[in-house]
């Protein structure tokens, strides 16, 4: 279904504005209470073991530092290939997530294994560059073999009400994700919820991204004060669920930044199950953007198996 049919008229800033502002407002208190109540569920033993493995397989193992080196990226990839040398049944993360110029090194390290390489693009994390630069950034990453592109939206344009601009940029990046072979890179759209200020804005940004053809909507870059939170993720899960019910298109959600413990991650899984349902309990439709989470999950896995608490001296720190 094309965007004009969904919006109900020719796409202009006015029509987009009308459409986005007709979305129901978010009940802040209700949303936060619902998220808090989902966070109290107790997941133990067998269910916990299952959840931990699912969390690993949903992870985008990430390194996005100015100090990233090819060697650092290689060691991250090795960690993704063999998360735990003592237990080779440990599943691998879904993807590694790196800067665009590191894609070639990640690809070389991963080879033909079934771990995707995701690249952040479009002047990540601020998104403050001309469209020409953003497109070239994306094309470079795609040409280097990235399977997924994590783009940031132009928050400045969004906050000043220039929805058409945001929409067009997402569409243009989506085009840039195409390959001559026909196998396009998946597009994850980072809303940077910490900068959108209100829940209403987050709901609007989610709908705008879905309208423009996002395959995933992602909460944050991990580079600002407020990153992924449970209420925000719950809100975005409602958006993708409603979008699927309305238009039959299933879109993924990726909370990123600030999820460091298994306990946190399990709360997210509970929220996925209770909000969007089983269809989203799948690495193709739900991802965790995280770097230190993996070590904590590995420690918890060992704790379940050996019945002793692990120390950080016994897992690789990277």
């Amino acid at each position, binding site marked *: 279904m094309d965007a004009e049919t969904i919006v109900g008229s020719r796409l202009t800033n006015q029509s987009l504005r009308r459409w986005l502002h007709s979305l129901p407002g978010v009940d802040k208190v209700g949303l936060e209470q619902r998220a808090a109540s989902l966070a109290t569920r107790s997941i133990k033993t067998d269910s916990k073991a299952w959840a931990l493995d699912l969390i690993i397989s949903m992870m985008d193992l990430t390194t996005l530092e100015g100090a990233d080196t090819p060697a650092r990226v290689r060691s991250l990839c090795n960690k993704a290939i063999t998360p735990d040398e003592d237990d080779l049944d440990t599943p691998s993360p879904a993807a590694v997530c790196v800067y665009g110029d590191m894609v070639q090194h990640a690809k070389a390290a991963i080879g033909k294994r079934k771990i995707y390489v995701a690249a952040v693009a479009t002047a990540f994390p601020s998104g403050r560059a001309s469209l020409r630069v953003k497109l070239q950034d994306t094309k470079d990453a795609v040409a280097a073999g990235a399977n997924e592109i994590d783009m940031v939206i132009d928050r400045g344009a969004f906050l000043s009400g220039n929805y058409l601009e945001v929409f067009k940029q997402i569409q243009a990046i989506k085009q840039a994700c195409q390959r001559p072979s026909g196998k396009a890179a998946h597009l994850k759209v980072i809303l940077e919820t910490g900068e959108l200020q209100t829940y209403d804005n987050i709901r609007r940004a989610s709908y705008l991204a879905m309208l423009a053809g996002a395959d995933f909507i992602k909460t944050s870059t991990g580079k600002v004060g407020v990153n992924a939170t449970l209420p925000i993720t719950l809100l975005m899960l409602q958006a993708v669920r409603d979008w699927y019910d309305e238009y039959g298109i299933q879109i993924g959600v990726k909370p990123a930044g600030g999820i460091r413990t298994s306990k946190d991650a399990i709360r997210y899984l509970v929220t996925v199950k209770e909000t969007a349902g089983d269809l989203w309990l799948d690495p193709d439709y739900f991802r965790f953007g995280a770097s230190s989470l993996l070590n904590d999950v590995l420690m918890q896995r060992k704790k379940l198996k050996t019945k*002793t*608490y*692990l*120390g*950080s*001296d*016994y897992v690789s720190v990277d």
Partner: protein
Amino acid sequence: MRLDVKKTYKLFIGGKFPRSESGRSYQVSDSKGKHLANVSLASRKDVRDAVSAARSAQPGWAGASAYNRGQVLYRIAEMLEGRRDQFVAEIQALTGKTAKQANAELDAAIDSWVWHAGWTDKIDTVAGSMNPVAGPFFNISTNQPTGVVGAFAPQDSALVGFVNTIAPAIVSGNTIVVVTSEKLSLPALSFGEVLATSDVPGGVVNILSGKESELSGWLVGHMDVNAVDLEGASKPAELELMAADTVKRVLRKGSYERLGSSGSLQHILELMELKTVWHPKGH
């Protein structure tokens, strides 16, 4: 008529006074078997929380200057002195000692504490060394704290045993998770209040009351604990076996000599690691 406000004795973890994660408590009786107080009964998850609090506090405490650590520890002795009546009353009620005997026990505890506090900036002067080597280098051995220590206060001592268990660990910059005597736990838990009102950073000392048999395995087997002190443990041989699965320093029962009731430098050194550095001397 007025109702007394009774104190519930709670755990001391990360500078806070939580009830046990399990929500359980047990009753402590006085020397005649009469109910004295309700005390939190720690669980395995309290051990977990205490170890992670100790782990996060460790670098900061070890990084403080020896002089500063000494000042902080002296301050604790001052606080103990100020709460003399409370401690004497608790020791008397639990053990049936006379006021004179209870006062003597508190005196011994404070003296021991001050004795330990004095060591912070003297350890390396006494136990470090400058080693002769065949080359143009200074070769210096210094003592570094081992890290997070797990320990058991002796079951038969209300206060002195507890003080002599934690002081040797923390003077050098270790942080500690200590399991108190089960029946004589009140002075140890009140000691947590002393720590909270002195300048010891939260997490340096973590105090758990409960059944030693329930907690010891989790503490000794915990891989994030760098050393265990089994001097006060009831079944040290069993615990030694459980600790053997991990790389950690184990202080067996009787592995150091005590100097009366005060403590021993050997005990302090057993909870430290020797680090040797080579430094070029020039010509």
